[in-house]
């Protein structure tokens, strides 16, 4: 949709009336509003919802544990007694973590069984339907007459996609999934288990993946069209050069040179997770938590959610009119996940990236 380019979340200028700038002759105290914001933010706390997608054994659960330095999942090894899940299931866990007085409500959604079947056709459908379900829930809450003060936000803010370290290029499954998902949610692809690649192989793999993404017009986070100003552009282009990050996850600590570090111990050495020379885990953590968390939430709210809302509200009058024609509450999966050929073509036509492809 070509609106995406103009729906930049942070600009506030276009629609306001022309205002003459006035000079303040002394200090007034307007700056104090920043502190007020901070206090308010500390009081209400933050929410963050992250989804990890990838085949089993790629280290998704370990990665989440490493990111948030806690046992988000009780055990990262698969339970050998249970059979492999036959279909894709989604497990969601919510935790409240606190740091320096700041509360973060973290929800992690895992997708065991993704890409594990013989026939992986349409394996992205449950994921898309879960994401859309969260949007739907938010929309329903927003449309109530008597609304809550603070609508609980369960929408997925970021989806981390784990690419298996084949060293060649993106597989058809990866391409299909990324293509479908990057329009609905912010996707951050990472190269999982990067300790099986050497540095040169890593770089080659990375550039091939970047080429693949470009060929298939897959717009991963941070999207170029939402760059606000020069600073953002600089920062984000640096990040874009490094996407996908090659990460290694570990939740055990080892002793290296007298320091206690998180790492994986092998016969030939210890891979330090937080060492930039070893892997790019720090970049991922900084992107997700330290610098772009608010931005991820903003884009989800202002772009993806709005797109969903437009689609939904436009659809509602096209619903068939029968005794149950006002049934909007549970959206049927077939309707939303893979929009009909007409819609896909329409969206594809309006996608600004199509011109570049």
């Amino acid at each position, binding site marked *: 949709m070509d609106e995406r380019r103009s*729906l930049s979340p*942070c600009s*506030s200028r*276009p*629609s*306001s*009336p022309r*205002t*003459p700038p*006035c000079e*303040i*002759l*002394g*200090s*007034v*105290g*307007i*700056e*104090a*509003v*920043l502190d*007020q*914001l901070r*206090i308010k*933010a*500390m009081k209400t706390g*933050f929410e963050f919802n992250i989804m990890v997608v990838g085949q089993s054994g790629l280290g998704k659960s370990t990665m989440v544990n490493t990111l*948030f*330095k806690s046992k988000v999942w009780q055990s990262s090894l698969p339970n050998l007694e249970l059979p492999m899940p036959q279909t894709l299931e989604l497990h969601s866990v*919510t*935790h*409240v*973590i606190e*740091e320096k007085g*700041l509360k973060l409500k*973290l929800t992690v959604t895992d997708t065991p069984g993704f890409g594990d079947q013989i026939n992986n056709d349409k394996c992205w459908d449950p994921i898309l339907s879960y994401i859309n379900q969260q949007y739907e829930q938010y929309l329903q809450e927003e449309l*109530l*007459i*008597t*609304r809550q003060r603070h609508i*609980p936000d369960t929408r997925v803010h970021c989806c981390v996609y784990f690419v298996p370290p084949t060293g060649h290029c993106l597989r058809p499954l990866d391409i299909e999934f990324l293509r479908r998902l990057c329009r609905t949610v912010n996707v951050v692809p990472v190269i999982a288990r990067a300790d099986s690649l050497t540095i040169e192989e890593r770089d080659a793999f990375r550039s091939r993946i970047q080429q693949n993404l470009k060929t298939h017009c897959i717009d991963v986070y941070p999207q170029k069209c939402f760059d*606000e100003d020069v600073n953002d552009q600089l920062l984000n282009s640096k990040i874009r050069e490094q996407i996908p990050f090659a990460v290694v996850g570990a939740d055990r600590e080892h002793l290296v040179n007298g320091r206690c570090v998180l790492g994986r111990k092998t016969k030939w050495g210890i891979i330090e997770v937080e060492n930039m020379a070893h892997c790019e885990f720090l970049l991922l953590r*900084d992107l997700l*938590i*330290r*610098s*772009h*968390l*608010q*931005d991820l939430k*903003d884009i989800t709210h202002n772009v993806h959610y709005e797109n969903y809302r*437009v689609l939904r*509200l*436009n659809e*509602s*009058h096209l619903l068939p*009119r029968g005794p149950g024609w*006002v049934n*909007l*509450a549970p959206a049927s999966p077939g309707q939303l996940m893979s929009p009909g050929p007409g819609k896909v073509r329409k969206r594809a036509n309006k996608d600004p990236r199509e011109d570049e492809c």
Partner: protein
Amino acid sequence: MASLDEVRQLKKEQIRSLTMCGHVGFESLPDQLVDRSIQQGFCFNILCVGETGIGKSTLINTLFNTNFEELESSHFCPCVRLRAQTYELQESNVRLKLTIVNTVGFGDQINKEESYRPIVDYIDDQFEAYLQEELKIKRALFNYHDSRIHVCLYFIAPTGHSLRTLDLLTMKSLDSKVNIIPLIAKADTISKSELQKFKMKLMSELVLNGVQIYQFPTDDDTTAKINGAMNGHLPFAVVGSMDEIQIGNKMVKARQYPWGIVQVENENHCDFVKLREMLICTNMEDLREQTHTRHYELYRRCKLEQMGFVDVGPENKPLSLQETYEAKRHEFYGERLRKEEEMKQMFVQRVKEKEAILKEAERELQAKFEHLKRIHQEERMKLEEKRRMLEEESIAFSKKKATCDLFQSQSFMASGSSIKKDKDRKKIDAATAFCDCLTAKERMRLCVTPPRKDLD
């Protein structure tokens, strides 16, 4: 609604607390939020309600330490009008879009019954605009210039007695729509002791009449104490001035009188500093939040209920807004179809009538035409008759003439000249006699000239 609450409760129970064994680093989150807000800029809208000349513009100038361009309003406005002006202020890296709405002509009319109405309508219009934007399908809320009034500074005249009826009426109609902060204007005309009594009287009257003014929030630890203290100082007695007077070795804002100098920023002289502190430094964000979560939601709820939307349907199943919207839409659609049918029918009817009239006229015309034609025909026939008769007569005459000529020539041949002469004379006489028989008209027609006597 009950089921929704239950769901929420359940969700709460599933959330666990987690301890981290290291530093993750999300304490920068508030900074990220603040950075984003700085980029977006802030928006604040103040409504000043008070009589003309009570010092509203001066106070705003003093509050924001700027000379906003404001013209003095006249006292002769027929009704209360609202004038809004937007300014962009910047202090270090914070951009503030400030909108000041002034009431022009408030309290000037002789009949003040409808004075509060334009103010209430203005506030509702801003809410309405926001609601419209929110209900749009393709909306741009983050880009939207929020014009809803965040705070209303109500200027009370410093009579020293009590609240005036107009003030009470206006505040009562505004208290559910906007955060009201009452102020005593021109406080330098009241002495300290009178001021205390006045404040107490005002507050008791407000409480008695159930007017809900804005209470500074006391739920947060950092600001609870100061806010609580300030709540006891309401209404603030303020003095505004942009003139600078030298006191000691500083230039301060003050008003100079022959009997002394009233310093604006001196807490002993007036409550201006308190107002600035509360309004801008401590509670600006809270005012905005209250406007959005309380007043706007109230307006939205009332408006939607007015339009016929409900949250719970006839069988007590939760209805979504869209369902009701669709139902209404269907209804309106049916209504529209019906109206279209009606109009069509009416149109057809009118056309038929017109057609009938025209046909009637046509028929009349036709009849006239026939009649005239007949008359024509008759006349024509008559004339034909006449012509025939005339022709017959002329034929008869020419025959006679021919016989006459023949007769004349014969006689001339038979008898010589004398006889000819006689015969001629006879003939001529006969001809003449015959000619005399003819009427003058016929003569002319046949171009017969009376024969000359000297024919020989």
